[in-house]
């Protein structure tokens, strides 16, 4: 593939992520990978549900005593919005508008960082209360589930940032367009997982 080939919005393919064989393979491979990730998270959810509120005799922590909804709500809003902004970024990618795409991605990254900050704050708060990773099975499973999601957020952000830096001089081409597309799929997937986390962990946790 010729990286120096110049495109105009008009000659830019309608589905740049799928217009090379590499791109097709990558998109499909990534979807399949997400299938595996789904099962991975399912395992973590199942374990969390089994170990929820379980701890050493006389443990005073429970989902109901710990979780506070306002924080979870704000986090949810940040992440949902970042999902939309990454949709905007892909919209501009397909329009061959590199600048606008990068700009929307920066917004996405900022929202993601906000989410991450709140999550770190939340963990810090719980640890402060004595609810730690090693305190109980509940703690282990909670931090592993939510932490794995957090790790995905970090990876997603790192991916976006690396892509933006790496391509800032290169601009869009058919070699990196699929990469942007996949990073944004990854970001949506992170949001999908979060929807279940806020529902199953936080909301149903508060319900008891």
């Amino acid at each position, binding site marked *: 593939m010729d990286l120096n080939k110049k495109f105009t919005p008009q000659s830019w393919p309608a589905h740049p992520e799928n217009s090379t064989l590499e791109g097709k393979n990558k998109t499909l*491979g990534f979807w399949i990978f997400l*299938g*595996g990730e789904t099962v991975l998270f399912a395992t973590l959810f199942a374990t969390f549900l089994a*170990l929820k509120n379980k701890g*050493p005799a006389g443990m005073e922590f429970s989902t109901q005593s710990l979780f506070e909804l306002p924080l979870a709500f704000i986090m949810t809003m940040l992440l949902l919005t970042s999902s939309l902004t990454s949709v905007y970024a892909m919209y501009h990618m397909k329009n061959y508008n590199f600048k606008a795409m990068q700009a929307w991605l920066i917004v996405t990254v900022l929202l993601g960082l906000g989410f991450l900050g709140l999550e770190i704050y939340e963990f810090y708060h719980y640890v402060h209360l004595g609810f730690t990773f090693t305190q109980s*099975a509940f*703690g282990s499973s909670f931090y592993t589930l939510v932490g794995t999601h957090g790790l995905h957020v970090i990876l997603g952000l790192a991916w976006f940032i690396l892509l933006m830096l790496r391509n800032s001089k290169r601009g869009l081409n058919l070699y990196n367009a699929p990469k942007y597309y996949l990073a944004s799929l990854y970001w949506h997937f992170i949001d999908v997982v979060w929807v279940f986390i806020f529902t199953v962990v936080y909301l149903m946790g508060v319900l008891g």
Partner: protein
Amino acid sequence: MSSTAKKKGFGATIWDYLTTVDHKKIAILYLIAGTFFFVVGGIEAMLIRIQLAKPDNDFVSAGLFNEIITMHGTTMIFLAAMPLLFAFMNAAVPLQIGARDVAFPFLNSLGFWLFLFGGIFLNLSWFLGGAPDAGWTSYASLSLASPGHGIDFYALGLQISGAGTLIAGINFLVTIINMRAPGMTYMRMPLFTWTTFVASALILFAFPPLTVGLFFMIFDRMFDANFFDHINGGNTVIWEHLFWIFGHPEVYILVLPAFGLFSEIFATFARKRLFGYSSMVFATILIGFLGFMVWAHHMFTVGLGPTANAIFAVATMAIAVPTGMKVFNWLLTIWGGNIKVTTPMLYALGFIPSFVAGGVTGVMQASAPLDYQLHDSYFIVAHFHYVIVGGIVLALFASAHYYWPLMFNQMLNETLGKITFVFFFVGFHCTFFVQHFLGLMGMPRRVFTFMGGQGWDQFNLISTVGAFLMAIGVILLVVNVIITAIKNEPAGRDPWKDGRTLEWAIPQPVPYYNFKQTPLVRGLDTFWIEKMEGNKEGMTYAEPISDIHMPNNSFIPFMISLGLFVAAFGALYHQDADKTWSIPVLIIGLAITFASMITRSLKDDLGYHIHKEELMNEKGGKH
């Protein structure tokens, strides 16, 4: 062994293999590494059998015995059987579907190196304070209680090699979906391709639970988490579920490709189209699907309650139906055929009764109340060696003979091959048949010794004798390989004369870019169709000769894997207060990995082109 190797210096060949992204060379790497681990696991098996040859034997100590069985099971399943199957998948599947290569050549190489470094890491435990000793299932209460670092080696080693397997699985899925030559519809794919496809899908869904389970184990042992610590609210049975949610599909990951290989062999040497092709495909998918619904049949005695046991018992039995469809389709393939008993065919014929015998004992175990008696007895050992050795190992040996000419352009000696078969086959039945009775007579598995006079002495001795016959068989196979390599007679294209599928249509030695022109597939068994129509070339082309795009070799996969290998030592020793170097090592290892990944990401690696003119001049596979 390939003709290219000889022209280059030794160092250059090594470097070539360290950096290769060519599926054919990666196949050879898998074959070598897998064989190495098979011999290691086999030697461990021999130690087991020697120890159990007579009552109150003290050939190995109790603790060592547990390490041996654990490493035997783990090595055989993860480091021998799976990689050997990957070897044949890599060698044959891209050719069978008429592809240039797999979808992600770079990842293909990464998958291999991850597997190899994980395997080496696991086996280094022997020299670094003791191997894992909680059985290949590593049940949580025992594995948490196990002193030393054995279990840590197990968890980290499997984690690394498991990542490699997952990558390989995704790679095959995409390859099969996206890289098929024109005309190669799903319902024209050779059965080995189909079974590779379904097995890869099983890998995709079965390995994540193992990954998570192993992380729990690592966290519990190394970072004081409480997943399995019941005093702090944990639950050991979670491990059992996660392990078997992975473990049961795993056995079908192993056996489905074996089924595929046998399907090819039956059709080829019966000179007949595979009987009931579409129902074979259907059965493969159904087995894959049901494989996820039955894991708790390994846990009938755990105390999950009668409802769970009953549901899982009946679900398990259901698997007999699609498997039976396959068995009868094979029988009907040879029925009315024109059977030539070559070495591969001999193995395939040996497979049918052996596997059926192993399968039906599986159904007996599926009957939960009966399994209360059979569970954790030698009956189980007999069952799974019947399906594994009688299914998978026979398939591997068969394919070694069958695909040797495809991979190396040489024919293994047929006579010696048949002698190998006899030793191995007789030894196999001799070893494992009597174990059914040992189990029924009350002998538990995983015992390092047994008291005399409990009625078990004779059968154990018979079993050991059989194992020695098997060992002779394996050694003969190695001898065969060496003789063949020394003789070095080119086998040429379609050496079995009855090849049916595309991989036999390619010239020998296989050019590094595979098909010069992408073939056009005109039906199931497309090579056969062309031959029957008298097409000398054996192929119709879908395109004129044009430039071929090739990926660059890369050393990065090796480095990524090496980094994780190094990091694993850091993680493992970080529990020991006196090993202050552990954290730096962990960081260095991860740094190597991430730096390699970033290097990969920053470079635009676009590969290169073989130009049309070059291809026109090319005669065969030299470059």
